[in-house]
């Protein structure tokens, strides 16, 4: 009986815990705190944070409990991450809830969404330079796309063992958009530029909105077929929304479906950050490069907007270039916030949505290109 008790006690978390578990549990609690108290992307950070707690409870190996042990509950749910099931489903939901009309009204703003992807490729070079192999460098670079599902999608394909740190870095930086972007935006623009008022967009007809997802899908996927799972679902979701006749399906995609997938994705990504996998030198490099990627992406968008102004008759407010990173709609809100600090009557949100949404398309195409190159 004494032996039984000792055996039981030796199997408890208290006996198995090491300092790395404690660190990760603290990180999980901080992430939950950021989500709940600071309300930084709570829908993502709360599940990820709690997932970290789940993943870092010390357990006996081969007991069929851990996320990396086949047959465990977490392992089954994690299958959706490692086999790229969740990201396309999230894109379906995003398509079904996103209004593309501001982008359709002024398509030239889509170029800002392309410019912000420079961050991805610059970071890819940076990661190569500090010694990451090309497949891992590509997965790290995609953090600059500021799109969690895209980052997970590419990493699952190219560097599955890095899913945890890359997903957490991508989502953390997405949540920290209001902190990271404003100083860069202010640094790169003059007050006069920040005061520029954008012209009212033209009205976009219903037919245009219905035709767009079909044209957009065909064009993008002919050019970058590897983007098919992500962009196929994004444009399909948008068609559901715009064609009106399948409102029930659109509603499900933008509410229940995306919520369910977000829960499963968030918890499993969090749980995948087990201390022995997560607390490595590589993770520090990933986080540092992720921040760099994000900063470059923001700066590229703003600078490109300034370059566009050299040629445009009707000037655009360069702040909206920062929304080219695809953290929808967070970065567009940041643009609005920074713009309104200069002029409270200047509403940039609607205009910033155009590069913001095109950034989603741009980062999916960038991921597809990297995937294609790495598979060659």
């Amino acid at each position: 009986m004494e032996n039984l008790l000792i055996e039981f006690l030796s199997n408890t978390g208290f006996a198995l815990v090491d300092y790395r578990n404690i660190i990760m549990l603290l990180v999980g609690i901080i992430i939950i705190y950021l989500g709940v108290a600071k309300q930084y992307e709570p829908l993502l950070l709360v599940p990820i944070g709690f997932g970290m707690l789940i993943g870092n409870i010390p357990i006996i190996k081969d007991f069929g409990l851990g996320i990396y042990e086949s047959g465990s509950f977490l392992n089954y749910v994690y299958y959706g991450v490692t086999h790229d099931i969740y990201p396309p489903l999230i894109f379906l939901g995003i398509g079904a809830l996103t209004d593309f009309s501001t982008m359709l009204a002024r398509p030239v703003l889509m170029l800002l969404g392309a410019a912000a992807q420079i961050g991805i490729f610059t970071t890819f070079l940076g990661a190569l330079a500090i010694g990451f192999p090309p497949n891992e460098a590509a997965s790290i670079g995609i953090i600059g796309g500021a799109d969690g599902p895209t980052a997970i999608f590419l990493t699952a394909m190219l560097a599955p063992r890095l899913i945890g740190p890359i997903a957490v870095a991508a989502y953390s930086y997405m949540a920290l958009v209001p902190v990271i972007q404003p100083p860069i935006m202010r640094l790169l623009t003059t007050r006069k530029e920040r005061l520029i008022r954008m012209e009212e967009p033209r009205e976009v007809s219903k037919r245009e909105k219905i035709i767009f997802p079909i044209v957009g899908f065909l064009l993008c996927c002919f050019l970058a077929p590897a983007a098919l799972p992500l962009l196929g679902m994004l444009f399909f979701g948008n068609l559901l929304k715009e064609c009106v006749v399948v409102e029930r399906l659109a509603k499900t995609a933008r509410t229940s479906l995306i919520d369910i997938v977000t829960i499963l994705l968030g918890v499993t990504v969090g749980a995948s950050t087990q201390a022995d996998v997560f607390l490595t030198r590589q993770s520090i490099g990933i986080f540092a490069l992720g921040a760099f990627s994000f900063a470059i992406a923001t700066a590229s968008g703003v600078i490109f907007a300034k370059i566009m102004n050299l040629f445009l008759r009707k000037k655009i407010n360069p702040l909206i270039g920062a929304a080219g990173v695809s953290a929808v709609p967070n970065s567009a809100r940041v643009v609005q916030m920074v713009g309104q600090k200069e002029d409270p009557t200047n509403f940039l949100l609607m205009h910033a949505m155009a590069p913001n949404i095109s950034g989603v398309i741009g980062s999916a195409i960038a991921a597809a290109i990297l995937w294609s190159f790495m598979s060659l």
Partner: protein
Amino acid sequence: MSTDIQTLKSLDLFADLNFGELEQIAPLMHLMKVTEGEVLTRKGEPAGTFFIILSGNFMLSFKEERTFTLHNKGNIIGLSTVVTPFRYTGTAVALTDGLVLLMQGQDFLRLIQSNSALGDKIMQKINEIVSERMPYMTGAWEERRY
């Protein structure tokens, strides 16, 4: 977003609102397809939803079967959702297939609660429409009856 901002901006009820205000309303409005003969509201029932016409033709009948028809984008059905007595005073029937935007009364009340200035702007417009429709609702033409 359930409804796009541009559609809302084109409606008379929301024409004076700025982008930020429209952004608050957009998620509360839902698009609905209606078919010929569909009943949107029934006289006497608790008013839980109000509708804004995007397309189609509708008939509103009130006390003693007094009726008027609505044919234009932006016309509103189900005002009792936001004004007393919070019970539909008329029956609304779709005369043709069409599209409407609908908002739950609960959502509207919450909107007023969270942004009273915005609620006030909308209520002013609604009150104008209510006063136009008042004779139909109350039958204030009593003396001039046929």
